[in-house]
């Protein structure tokens, strides 16, 4: 029995007990938690590598690792963070756990396929991590595996690429599952426009997963074939073209950025109305801007290649499209702000982290627009500015969206409440450390510090020192944040079904939810965010 005194999905109610009851479970909530634990493990590993990389940039610790190891470190940091944490993080963890609850369903459309996706994820992760220890050392190409270097290097690229290839299956199958779930399993009365906005963002994300991931599979397959058999499609010595590789890689990997950020935007859209105690401003604008981001975002990949030798016309087109994709993103930010206006705000930790998301994501987004300008891009290309920018988006955006989602839904997932004070306290070092680390990178990049360099000129010393100290402060915040949640998982006070007074369907069921989610199948008669008169039955 759980804290709430009712049998929940956390109790083994099936024929199996213990670990087997988890790793063979087709319950979307258990699979969501499996993803949560695995991806958090990878996040901590990735963060540790990041910490070492920052340390190496201090003169005193410079010789802690050699140049070749440094190349491997930034490659592994990128692969682990992107493929194992940021891409599957929100859709696989909270998409799995919350999507069926938010639309009033019992489970996803294909529960067994869902479990299979988790196994694909774990297998891909195991293969990618095995590449670090087998063969001739960990890959040193950077996470983008650019040809022709990735074809020539003696390190273990083939296995790492194969790991990413397998991870792609997990992503695609999850996307297929969620699209079908949203089409078929919405509760009676839940029309498309009565659906909460997190499912909308998952819907857009899933389409990107289905449409873009296969191209990554093709590309990675060609890299493997190239290394094994020498088919020559990306190899200039055999008539192939490395620029073709870059196109194909970014045809997936730019939309993948929206796989990462859209679900985080969806989380923020759930959190704001709950704590502003009013309906979301511009429901349809937010819903369609998710689709708009997914659509336009699929056509902007060339902005990663402005200095690669594309035609000026192609550069111009990609620059224009990049500017355009900022429009639906800005629509969201304006609507979020307008939602807070004249709300009766109940300032709780999830809202704090959600607002931090908006702030950090805005910096990330605006620096992105800067890079979208062709002339500026030439100056900023491959500098720390880029590194700072995408950490603002990926970490400040997706990362803080993930933290906000954890704080918002933790009481629902485990039926227990964490210490709100500790969540406030953790925020302070996280916010300060984050900006010390990544804003400094923006400045360093503007001054000309190239990314992925083992060494730096003495003129950049101060910047690197500030950033490294920032990384320590940031990690301190992370430790407090997760220690708080880990403690609350076992010893937290009972949370009750709706600790935040949210109006969406997941708060109508006990916490943690029972296996079948809803004791009675819900019937929906109103929109998702209704507060005030007649809000709760």
């Amino acid at each position, binding site marked *: 029995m759980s804290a709430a005194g009712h*049998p929940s999905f956390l109790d083994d*109610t*099936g*024929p199996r007990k213990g670990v087997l009851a988890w790793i063979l479970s087709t319950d979307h909530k258990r699979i969501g938690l499996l993803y949560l634990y695995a991806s958090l493990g990878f996040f901590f590993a990735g963060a540790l590598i990041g910490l070492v990389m920052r340390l190496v940039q201090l003169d005193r610790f410079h010789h802690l690792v050699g140049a070749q190891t440094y190349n491997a470190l930034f490659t592994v940091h990128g692969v682990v963070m992107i493929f194992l944490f940021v891409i599957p993080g929100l859709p696989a963890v909270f998409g799995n756990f919350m999507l069926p609850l938010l639309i009033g369903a*019992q489970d996803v*459309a*294909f529960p067994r*396929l869902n479990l299979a996706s988790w196994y694909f994820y774990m297998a891909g992760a195991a293969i990618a991590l095995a590449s670090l220890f087998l063969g001739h050392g960990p890959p040193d190409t950077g996470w983008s595996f650019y040809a022709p270097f990735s074809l020539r290097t003696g390190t273990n690229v083939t296995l790492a690429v194969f790991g990413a290839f397998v991870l792609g299956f997990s992503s*695609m199958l999850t*996307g*297929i*599952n969620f*699209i*079908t779930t949203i*089409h*078929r*399993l919405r509760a009676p009365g839940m029309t498309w426009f009565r659906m909460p906005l997190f499912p909308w963002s998952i819907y857009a994300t899933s389409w990107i997963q*289905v*449409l873009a*991931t*296969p*191209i990554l*599979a*093709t*590309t990675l*397959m*060609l890299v493997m*074939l190239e290394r094994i*058999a*020498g*088919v*020559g*499609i990306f190899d200039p010595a*055999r*008539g*192939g*073209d490395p620029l*073709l590789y870059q196109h*194909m890689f970014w*045809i997936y990997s730019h939309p993948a950025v929206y796989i990462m950020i859209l679900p985080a935007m969806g989380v923020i859209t759930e959190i704001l109305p709950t704590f502003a105690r009013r309906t979301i401003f511009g429901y349809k604008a937010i819903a369609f801007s998710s689709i708009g981001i997914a659509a336009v975002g699929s056509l902007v990949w060339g902005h990663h290649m402005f200095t690669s030798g594309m035609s000026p016309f192609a550069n111009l087109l990609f620059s224009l499209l990049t500017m355009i994709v900022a429009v639906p993103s800005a629509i969201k930010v304006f609507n979020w702000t307008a939602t807070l206006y004249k709300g009766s705000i109940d300032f709780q930790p999830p809202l704090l982290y959600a607002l931090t998301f908006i702030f950090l994501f805005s910096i990330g987004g605006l620096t992105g627009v800067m890079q979208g300008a062709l002339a500026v891009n030439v100056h900023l290309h491959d500098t720390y500015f880029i590194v700072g920018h995408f950490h603002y988006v990926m970490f400040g955006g997706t990362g803080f969206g993930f933290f906000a989602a954890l704080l918002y839904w933790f009481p629902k997932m485990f039926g227990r409440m964490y210490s709100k004070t500790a969540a406030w306290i953790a925020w302070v070092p996280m916010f300060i450390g984050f900006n010390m680390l990544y804003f400094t990178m923006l400045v360093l990049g503007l001054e000309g510090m190239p990314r992925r360099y083992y060494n730096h000129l003495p003129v950049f010393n101060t910047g690197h020192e500030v950033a490294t100290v920032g990384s320590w402060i940031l990690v301190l915040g992370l430790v407090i944040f997760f220690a708080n949640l880990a403690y609350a998982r076992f010893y937290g006070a009972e949370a009750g079904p709706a600790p935040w007074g949210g109006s969406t369907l997941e708060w109508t069921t006990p916490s943690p939810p*029972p*296996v*079948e989610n809803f004791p009675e199948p819900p019937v929906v008669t109103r929109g998702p965010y209704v507060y005030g008169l007649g809000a709760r039955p």
Partner: protein
Amino acid sequence: MNLEAVLPHEHRDDFAGKLGMWLFLLTEILFFSGLFLCYSYLRAKYPADFHQAGSDMNVVLGVANTIVLLTSSLTLAAGIVAIQRRRRRLALGCVLATILLGLVFLVDKAVEWTAEIHHGLYPGASHLARQPPGVQVFFGLYYTMTGLHGLHVIAGISVLSVMAVWVARGRIEPDRPLALENSGLFWHLVDVVWIFLLPLFYLAA
């Protein structure tokens, strides 16, 4: 607590099953489309070399294989109609014929590859390395695309073998033959991809 007591009876949604399959086919199409993109770009870059390389292809075998594969789609479609009309033995015969035709396709393909490898036309061969760059990538693409297609044929044959057992045991319900229909969709996709591969490689000259 017993799960059966908590959960209502099994809920089956064939429409969802069909939708999921179509989405999966979409990913398959896009998986191949990446290779078609490589092909179109490299062909535009080396039109003359592709013409020269295409003249080394065995058109007769290629066309014969096309006929084999198209016929196999016909037999499978006939099998689905047969099961819907509750003629299980006929349906089983149709599925087995499809598997047989798939195997014939693979044998034909193996004969072609063997001949080409014998002529030194494979990545890594010194003969191919002396050819113009467009010819080299043509054969790189040829082995990649027909190889990937061949893997899909093998996957299709495996799935259809399971289907044959299910049909024989009466597991396919005549009113709702979802599994057989979805296998058919996959098989037809494999067929459609081949219809594009034939002109791109065999008729490139």
